[in-house]
């Protein structure tokens, strides 16, 4: 990442501020919650051991994994949103335009809502946490395979966008049919999954998440050069020696890996992927991906940490749905930026 940042010296200050902000939000996120832990104790708990055994357990078992999860979810969704917006030349694109979240939703819907069809004992076996993660992964993976298969046959990038939307519609329709035949409890459970959740991940789960996430992020960074060439349009990019099919494949594959695992582990978190790239472009005023990628990474992580801190409602036992908070906090910020600058950066 440092190699990317050192590209432009005039952005260095912005990046230093953002990294500092990220660290601050990270510690604050761990500090705040139903029981608040002082900053100094959080830092102590992270690097050595805290004097207070309860606090230490809360930090290492609950809050630290959740904060790390928030960083990965926020940065991952932001980056995959950026990749999709550039690939499809469409400011309305996000990580889920290819139908990845609908695929995951379908997988989860079949497990939760369809369990009634499989009956009794089998049903209770099915609805464990891992089965939901696996169902979501399988669902998004199958949609990904279909989109990739179709995209290798199609020359027009826009057609892939439409096909992704169509896959989304089909899966949404199947979910509706399943919901119609489901009981109230099953529906509630499905809706709760749809709220998204950053907590309850064990270190093992985080490690699996991180492995796939890291691969996706690496592919994204490796795509920075072709993403910049794509800013000129397909014909110019081609004239620069870029293989459109290969770079398109890598970009779609990276997005699917990131967005697919995020959805599997944290649920369909909608807003971040669309908004963070816009927020970053408005603030950094560039469309150069060597600047945008690290900036989107940092902004995504920061916004997700802030949203999560708000969602867990400090000093109370409530936890609000993270999916609602991201939009409640993020949308006004994006609107404000667009109105203030009167010009959309793309």
């Amino acid at each position, binding site marked *: 990442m440092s190699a990317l940042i050192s590209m432009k010296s005039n952005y260095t200050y912005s990046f230093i501020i953002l990294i500092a902000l990220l660290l601050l939000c990270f510690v604050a996120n761990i500090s705040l919650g139903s029981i608040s832990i002082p900053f100094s104790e959080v830092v102590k708990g992270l690097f050595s051991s805290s004097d207070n055994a309860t606090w230490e357990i809360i930090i290492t078992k609950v809050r630290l994994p959740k904060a790390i999860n928030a960083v990965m979810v926020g940065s991952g969704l932001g980056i995959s949103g950026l990749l999709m917006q550039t690939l499809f*030349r469409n400011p309305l694109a996000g990580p889920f335009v290819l139908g990845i979240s609908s695929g995951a939703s379908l997988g989860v819907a079949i497990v939760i809502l369809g369990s009634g069809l499989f009956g009794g004992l089998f049903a209770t076996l099915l609805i464990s946490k891992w089965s939901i993660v696996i169902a979501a992964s399988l669902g998004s993976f199958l949609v990904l395979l279909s989109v990739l298969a179709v995209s290798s046959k199609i020359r027009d990038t826009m057609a892939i966008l439409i096909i992704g939307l169509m896959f989304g519609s089909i899966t949404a329709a199947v979910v509706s049919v399943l919901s119609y035949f489901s009981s109230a409890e099953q529906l509630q459970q499905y809706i709760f999954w749809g709220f998204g959740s950053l907590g309850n991940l064990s270190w093992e789960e985080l490690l699996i998440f991180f492995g796939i996430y890291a691969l996706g992020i690496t592919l994204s960074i490796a795509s*920075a050069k072709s993403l910049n060439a794509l800013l000129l349009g397909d014909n110019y990019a081609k004239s620069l020696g870029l293989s459109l099919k290969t770079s398109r494949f890598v970009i779609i594959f990276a997005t699917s890996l990131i967005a697919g695992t995020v959805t599997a582990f944290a649920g369909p978190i909608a807003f971040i992927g669309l908004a963070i790239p816009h927020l970053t472009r408005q603030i950094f005023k560039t469309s150069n991906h060597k600047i945008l990628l690290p900036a989107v990474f940092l902004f995504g992580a920061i916004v997700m940490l802030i949203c999560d801190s708000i969602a867990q409602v400090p000093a109370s036992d409530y936890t609000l749905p993270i999916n609602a908070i991201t939009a409640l906090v993020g949308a006004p910020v994006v609107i404000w930026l667009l109105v203030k600058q009167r010009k959309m950066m793309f």
Partner: protein
Amino acid sequence: MPKSNSNTILQVQQLSIGYKTKKVETVIASAINFELQQGHLIGLVGANGIGKSTLLRTLIGVQPTLSGTVELNQQLLETTSPVELAKQLSIVLTEPLISKNLSVFELVSLGRHPYTNWIGNLSDNDLSIINNALQLVNIMDLKNRRCYELSDGQLQKVMIARALAQDTAIIILDEPTTHLDMYHKAYILKLLQKLTKETGKTILFSSHEIDLAIQLCDTMIVMQQDHVVCEQPCNLIKNGVFETLFPKDLIAFDNNTGSFKVTQ
């Protein structure tokens, strides 16, 4: 037709251009033969819809040939790898940029794409080529401006600088003078002429500015309904090629001034 000599950079033989779907082949122009020499400025003219853009798209490898051959530096176009082609041929198109949110320097530096490493870092050599391109086109002062702040004429110069930064033997421009006022039309074409003289590059452009092209080009390719001619402008005038370029009811070519006049 002159026989091929050592300065030939692009050679087109018995070329048919057009569109091909699974069943139908739409031929737009056929039996096209010409050779372009190194360091020449070549203007491609013809009426609307005659196939100028299709010819250019075929030459830059965006569109497959229907039949015939295009040879770039004695190598067949279809056997040239994309990266190799990118080092020999650069383009300036009429299509708008997807993002005008890049600085002029960033945009011009994208021309170095075929030469840079996986992440696109610019070496000192790349930087000096970029700066040289900016200087040749005389836009050093625009270096840090954003592309959305530029006028059409300035943007066209930036796109030409980007093509120069790609450091290719040939630059192909599709109607570089559209959307420009009379002064800037002349300015851009004069600039292209200057570039061929100073850099030894071959520059091929399509244009509707026939009178300007006659004055500035070394060679002109004239596309007509049934045949394509490639000659020096003075020979083209002598042979009366321009007189048959358009229907005669509205405009007529004046051999003495080398321009079209509205018929009274």
